């Protein structure tokens, strides 16, 4: 039954918010829904939260993201993107209609409500949060990620509970690789496409035969991105890995790791850390003189990194990303998205917000095309691979591994003196088509599993 209104915040515990609009009507009709089955439900057995979750006048989306911990800043941004998308879906905004042409208001005429919970980037918390959204709110959709460890855990939950999961930011190859599931979909770029995209740029910029040092967070995201990067650079550029410093997520100090990197004789310092870990390790790398001797590369760009670290350290730094607002001159939907987002939140969107917005817009399109919330039908609708418009041009889902085929954007940090505005942190060097950057669908061991 749809949760009515209510605002409660408690740390580490459950943070939950239900949209307020139309709550009275929603609660009333959802209450009556237990006794009313749509005609088409008769020939299909109940699965997951279907049909209970979508038999009222609203459907519920469960969101879990880190609002505390080292990925808190990025998590909040992703939630903002998701909230804007839901608002737009419910109001039938022009941007949503450009991505999902059949959308009028809501999805199949139903209002979308949502709840938010904090997972601190911990997989157990993420699974608990979403499990409660499923049992208490009959969530028809879950979204989580920011840490790939959470995204992978939710993939497994999604497949078990038969509720579709849209990954938020998740850079690990595993999310649509060995840990892919029938019920999971990913929008953003990942280790493999990051490496294949930025690799040639790095070899061209720095030359062949360079010595590389890596600083790698110790979980699936870090390991797979590091492997993809070193595989590409060592094979195609004749580079060598002189050290790979594996550090824990949320380390309070990076001095010992950075000393090893300083002493490694590397030419290039590839920092795979993310969130506050990236901010702190880059600032400390500066303190230890690492950035004077080695060129910094951020293979998998971190939203807000340049804002927090500043142009003095990020000037000239190469990175690959899913989205940067500076592409708006060539992509009309990017311009619309930037305008809508900055109007609501007062700053230009980063790629985490773009990811969650587009995920929800593409879900709206898939459900509208399926004409039903019945999960196997929605999944099959996704798997048709329909080409759709987006902020980064035309995109489509790959049916074999549920990965969105989308461009990778190569950017280079601007020096503080070259910035034309206070949010002008990155120069867009290239927008690379996604398809050629991707591995074969089965290369990372993806087996999607069953529909039912």
């Amino acid at each position, binding site marked *: 039954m749809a949760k009515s209104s209510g605002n409660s915040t408690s740390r580490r515990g459950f943070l939950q918010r239900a949209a307020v609009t139309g709550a009275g009507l929603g609660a009333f009709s959802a209450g009556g829904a237990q006794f009313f089955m749509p005609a088409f439900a008769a020939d299909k057995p109940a699965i997951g939260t279907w049909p209970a979750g979508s038999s009222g006048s609203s459907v519920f989306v469960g969101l879990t993201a880190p609002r505390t911990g080292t990925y808190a800043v990025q998590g909040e941004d992703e939630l903002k993107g998701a909230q804007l998308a839901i608002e737009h879906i419910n109001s039938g905004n022009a941007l949503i209609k450009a991505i999902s042409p059949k959308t009028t208001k809501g999805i199949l005429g139903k209002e979308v409500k949502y709840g938010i919970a904090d997972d601190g980037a911990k997989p157990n918390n993420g699974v608990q949060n979403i499990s409660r959204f499923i049992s208490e709110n009959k969530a028809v959709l879950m979204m989580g990620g920011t840490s790939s460890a959470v995204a992978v855990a939710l993939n497994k939950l999604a497949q078990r509970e038969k509720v579709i999961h849209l990954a938020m930011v998740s850079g690990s190859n595993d999310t649509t690789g060995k840990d892919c599931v029938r019920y999971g979909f990913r929008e953003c770029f990942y280790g493999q496409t990051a490496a294949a995209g930025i690799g040639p740029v790095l070899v061209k910029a720095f030359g062949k035969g360079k010595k590389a040092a890596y600083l790698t967070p110790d979980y699936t995201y870090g390991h797979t991105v590091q492997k993809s990067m070193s595989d590409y650079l060592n094979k195609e550029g004749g580079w060598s890995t002189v050290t790979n410093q594996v550090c824990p997520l949320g380390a309070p100090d990076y001095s*010992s790791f950075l000393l090893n990197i300083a002493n490694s004789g590397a030419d290039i310092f590839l920092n795979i850390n993310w969130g506050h870990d990236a901010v702190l390790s880059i600032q400390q790398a500066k303190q230890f003189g690492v950035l004077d001797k080695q060129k910094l590369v951020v293979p998998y760009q971190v939203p807000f990194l340049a804002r927090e670290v500043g142009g003095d350290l990020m000037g000239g730094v190469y990175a690959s990303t899913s989205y940067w607002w500076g592409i708006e001159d060539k992509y009309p939907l990017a311009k619309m998205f930037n305008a809508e987002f900055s109007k609501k939140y007062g700053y230009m969107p980063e790629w985490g917000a773009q990811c969650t917005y587009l995920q929800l817009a593409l879900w709206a399109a898939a459900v509208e095309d399926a004409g039903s919330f019945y999960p196997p039908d929605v999944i099959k609708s996704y798997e048709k691979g329909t080409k759709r418009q987006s902020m980064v041009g035309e995109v489509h889902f790959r049916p074999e591994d549920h990965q969105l085929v989308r461009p990778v954007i190569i950017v280079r940090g601007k020096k503080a003196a070259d910035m034309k505005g206070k949010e002008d942190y990155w120069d867009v060097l290239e927008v690379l088509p996604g398809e050629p950057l991707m591995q074969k669908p089965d290369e990372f061991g993806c087996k999607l599993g069953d529909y039912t």
Partner: protein
Amino acid sequence: MFTWANLVSQMFNGLVLGALLALISSGLTIIYGTLGVLNLAHGAMFMMGGYAGYLAFTATGSYVLAVAAGALFVMVLGVVMERVIIRHFYSRPNEDQLLVTFGLSIVFVELVRFFFGSLSRNVPPPAWASGVTPLGFMLYPTYRLVVVGIVVVALLVLYFVLYRTRLGMIVRAGIEDSTMVDSLGINVFRVFMVVFGIGAMAAGFAGIVNAPVVSLTPEVGEMILVQTFVVVVIGGVGSFPGAILGGLIAGQILSITSMINPGYAYVMLFAAMTLVLLVRPRGLMGLHSRD
């Protein structure tokens, strides 16, 4: 990646890291030793010191004023905390004390998050201590070298207060046997308030001194708190020299392990703690185990 140059630089870095940990831990251990209260809000107070100093720095641009503000603010906070809340928990079971200090830490962290957000804040090192110093065998951030000096002075002051003043004598007597001190007609409650203030001040002072090394986030204290506990357990709960020894040992473990296999740096820290607990349950310098 073993080379002698790397070993020397890691050992040196371990010393700096250890000095910082020693300072933070000393506040925690003094409070526990005297009051018997394990203050889980210590990390949050460390963080509050950083933010108070950050505010003072943005207002005045002065590093010295920032340090003074960070230390004094948290001292006052500590005294208020002791008088208003902690005092009522001395006679309550340990679980209650843990829960109330843990609760306070949540309140502090969320208050700071409410006012400052999660984006990190920077307090730059003072101009005279910024940049890199060549040590011969490596280049080292000048500010971290200055931090060692600051920590040594701060620990000496603490030592003087604890071992060379009347107050210190009472505090140490209180650690040994608080009932006896009480029966000698000394106002234990006033001493407790002063001790809590000093312990809190040590945390706040460490928080702002450490701020230019790590950029400030509301969680900066949580990450430090875990390490601080390990240091205190290794050194001996309630022992001031133990906190210093524990800090130095923890610094070396983190640095040297990370040279051999960085993935095991924190694992080794906990392994060392377990080993100490097995061989010497009261910690290396612990006088007696508490009931």
